[in-house]
């Protein structure tokens, strides 16, 4: 009895950490939304109403955006939940990208076969969970939270990739992502353990304090930890040479999920890269910057070179996403506030242009016999200009042509590299953009300059079946929501290319969150 009493008093001494519910509210909205969605999916909806859970999920994401605006406060924020999580503008700003990506993905999947086969409720709930994981990851102030976030992000995505259980390609994508993702997670975990071993703390702020004071910069434990953590995160951000899974998984996964992974997962990976390197490991900047710079160069070159030979639009966008990750990595390399702002800015414009492109791919693969082959776009300028223009704008923006936000974003990144004494990296970004013209312009040529034979690599012997998101009954005219997503994102890309101030203000607020930076 006395033992029990002692245990009881011990238990009484344990105080649950104080939770700042206001700061947490966006995350609560997402998680609460997922419960509501799952519960709603149990109700007996009629056939025509099966999209209701997905619409509820969209409502939850809009609520999260609203709460983000409510809690928005520039400047460094105090970590909440006993120092585990920091809902500062870096977290909030990047998490808006997750919410927007989530809304776009749900809209794009409303009519897809995934929703029918997997059930709208389960599908939407997995998406919301993944978003919650991303928010946790972006806000992680602690190595444990960081790992928790990355797992919460990844596990639903493994399922989402393989959610079309009757499609071999989808299953293959899910399995591949599971295996590669687990290797990445394990590497990351190893790295985090080494970091803990070197600095005796899991708190990013304490790690930052320890580096350079109690722990010398040349400490082998620290260096191994940094290297392994960077490698693990490089898997998630599809940074070369850890990108090999990207094209296969992107191609096999249902296209809306691919779009989500291309923009949201990348944004989450960069958010944590920024926080880990610019806050926790900032003292060791001289150690990791050259290594990350080398990774950035590799990524830019390999990504662009890989994209040139692709016929499949999804694979092409996957490779181009690898290259774009290389550009953004340059913003991390410099380790300045300007670099942080430029990366956040580029993540936002990257979201818009990629979602526009994926929306067009989805619209076409549902009606075209060629699936996501580049030929499915042939003559699109004539047959449906409302799809061709968003795609045109997306391609021009990805290539960094003026009057699109892609130009401003690239400008910002190059500006950051020159300011951070990495001018040569700026030149590498430019060289990468030149290589990228080859494949982006080809898409434009197919759409607008047909009917002419474009010189492309030969079609592979086995016809790739149009696997993902393909529903033959859906007609091009009968998918207004896809058109809506494409047009809105493309319009935003142009508007932000001419009037970028609003996005600059946001990027500036995001940049103000880390006090360690100059």
């Amino acid at each position, binding site marked *: 009895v006395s033992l029990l009493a002692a245990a009881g008093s011990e238990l009484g001494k344990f105080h649950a950490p104080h939770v700042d519910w206001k700061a947490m509210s966006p995350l609560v909205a997402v998680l609460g939304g997922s419960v509501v969605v799952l519960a709603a999916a149990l109700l007996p909806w009629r056939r025509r109403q099966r999209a209701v859970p997905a619409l509820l999920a969209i409502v939850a994401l809009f609520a999260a955006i609203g709460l983000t605006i409510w809690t928005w406060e520039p400047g460094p924020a105090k970590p909440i939940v006993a120092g585990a999580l920091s809902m500062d503008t870096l977290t909030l700003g990047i998490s808006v990208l997750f919410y927007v990506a989530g809304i776009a993905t749900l809209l794009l999947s409303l009519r897809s076969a995934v929703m029918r086969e997997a059930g709208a409720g389960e599908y939407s709930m997995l998406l919301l969970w993944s978003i919650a994981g991303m928010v946790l990851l972006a806000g992680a102030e602690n190595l444990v939270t960081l790992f928790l976030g990355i797992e919460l992000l990844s596990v639903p995505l493994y399922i989402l990739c393989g959610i079309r259980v009757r499609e071999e390609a989808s299953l293959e994508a899910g399995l591949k992502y599971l295996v590669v993702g687990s290797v990445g997670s394990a590497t990351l975990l190893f790295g985090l353990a080494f970091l803990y071993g070197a600095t005796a703390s899991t708190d990013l702020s304490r790690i930052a304090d320890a580096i350079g004071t109690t722990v010398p910069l040349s400490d082998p434990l620290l260096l191994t930890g940094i290297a392994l953590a960077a490698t693990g995160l490089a898997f998630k951000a599809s940074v070369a040479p850890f990108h090999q899974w990207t094209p296969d998984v992107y191609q096999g996964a249902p296209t809306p999920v691919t779009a989500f992974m291309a923009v949201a997962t990348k944004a989450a990976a960069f958010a944590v890269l920024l926080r880990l390197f610019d806050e926790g490991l900032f003292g060791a900047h001289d150690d990791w910057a050259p290594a990350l710079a080398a990774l950035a160069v590799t990524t830019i070159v390999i990504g662009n070179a890989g994209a040139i030979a692709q016929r499949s639009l999804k694979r092409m966008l996957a490779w181009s996403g690898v290259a774009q990750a290389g550009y953004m990595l340059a913003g991390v390399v410099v380790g300045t506030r300007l670099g942080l702002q430029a990366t956040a800015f580029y993540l936002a414009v990257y979201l818009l242009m990629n979602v526009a492109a994926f929306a067009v791919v989805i619209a076409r693969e549902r009606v075209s016999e060629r699936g996501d082959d580049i030929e499915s776009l042939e003559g699109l*300028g*004539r047959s449906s200009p409302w799809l061709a223009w968003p795609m045109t704008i997306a391609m*021009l923006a990805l290539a*960094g*042509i*003026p*009057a699109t936000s892609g*130009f*401003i974003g690239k*400008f*910002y990144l*190059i*500006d950051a590299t*020159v*300011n951070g004494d990495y*001018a040569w990296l*700026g*030149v590498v*970004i*430019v060289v990468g*953009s*030149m290589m990228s*013209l*080859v494949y982006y*312009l*080809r898409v*434009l*040529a197919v759409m*607008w*300059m047909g009917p*002419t034979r*474009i*010189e492309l690599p030969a079609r592979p012997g086995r016809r790739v079946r149009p696997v993902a998101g393909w529903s033959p009954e859906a007609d091009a005219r009968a998918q207004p929501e896809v058109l809506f997503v494409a047009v809105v994102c493309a319009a935003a890309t142009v508007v932000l290319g001419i009037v*970028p*101030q609003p996005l*600059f203000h946001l990027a*500036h607020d995001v940049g103000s969150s880390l006090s360690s930076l100059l």
Partner: protein
Amino acid sequence: MPLSVPIFAPLAAGLVSALLPRRWARWVVLGAAVFVLGFAIGSMADYPTSGFRLTHVTDTKWIPELGIRYTLGVDGLNLFLIALTAVVWVAALLAAALRDWERPRLFFFHMALAETAVLGAFCAQDLILFVFFFDLMLIPFYFLIGGWGGRRRVAATTKLVIYTLVGSLLMLAGAIALGVLATPDGAHVSFSLADLAQRGVGKGTQEWIFLLFAAAFLVKAPAFPLHGWMPDGYRAAPIEVLIPFSAVLSKVGMYGFLRIVLPIMPDASQHFQELMIAIAVVSILYGSVLAFTQDDARLVVGYSSVAQLGFILLGIFALDLQGKGAEGALLQMVNHGLVVAPLFLIIAALAARTRSGSELLSRMGGMATRAPVLAALFLIVAFATLAMPGSANFTGELLILFGAFSTKIAFGLVATAGVVLAAVYMIRVYQRSMHNRAGPEVESRDLTRGELIPLGALVAVIVALGLYPNFITQRSEDTTQLSTYRPALVACSGIESKDFGRAHFPIGGDIRCGKGYALYLRETP
């Protein structure tokens, strides 16, 4: 009137016409181009005959976070190029409006966007704004050549765009580096051309940035080793698209040298002077020789442009203290634009008079027999092209050679051969098409009204300018001297530009060369 109005009028017209019925699109866009022309004539009339004041200035914040301003202005350097743009676009749009196009609204939208971008590039007084328009102007031409061009158009347009955008992207990197590296500690980044010229960067930095800019501008020209896109691009483009492309776009790069490179990077300009002059001279000889051997009439004009732009480049990098070479280069830019546009219209007219629509000289001949008006107009244009005394081209080439002789006499002598070669290839084209025995496919008939109006208007401008080239040289000489004096002073005194300090240079006044004079300038407030 704010300068933004004429710059964006074509684009606005292009957007509006997308909402209008098909057959109206062309007239709306043409109306906007005529409006721009009216504006250009008005500002030429207003412009003072001496001095280098920037007029029609618009200066507002655009992207303050990056130090980019929306600064536009007109002075003696760009005034006549704006006018050239306006004239050429009206002629090209008129020619285009008189024939049928597939998807006309889209075609005229791209033409309008291109005019806006070119005008923007000429008017920009902020480096990044210039780069913005410089890159943008290529995109409509990508679609115009790829969408409405002839055989192998996709390959040609892709090659063209990749060649030129590669240059432009290099320039973008150079521009950012220039702005950031020129910023003194504690000051805000500025890309304003005036600020950059004031701040300056070190000689070593200038040199690598100079190469990035030169790549962009020389590809656009095209100059000798970078002209690979030209033959395919010229063959594939529709004539109405080729007219503004060849007459105006090639000038933007040369203008960039005068506006940006010489004033901001004087030491590098002097350092690479001989390299640039060598490129110019090789372009003159190579272009002239190839123009002489071509059978395709378009390529004769194309290679002759390579040669003519070689002359312009020679004038810019003559770097004489009086700025005569640059003055001649500016005049020659306008002249070349004015002769290339009617030459292409004539080629289109000639092709319409062969049964197969061929543009090969070997299929032509004897066209003059029943077409006196065509023959007469062609003769005027041909004489202007080969710089016959009495044409403005004569004045332009004379000024260029004057500049070259006063600094680099050996190169000047070689370049003189180019003047002779121009006579050879132009007379050959004229003889092969208009005289000789009539080819079996040729139907000689005179110009239709639709062909005559744009062609006659352009020839009238050529003749007027031939009578009074002073109209341009008088208004531009102070500005060209202003943009060349720093590198010219570096070239003749041998001291670096940063040692000049903020010396006030007596533009238009008595100028001497030598180290002592440069130092005297530094001491004089």
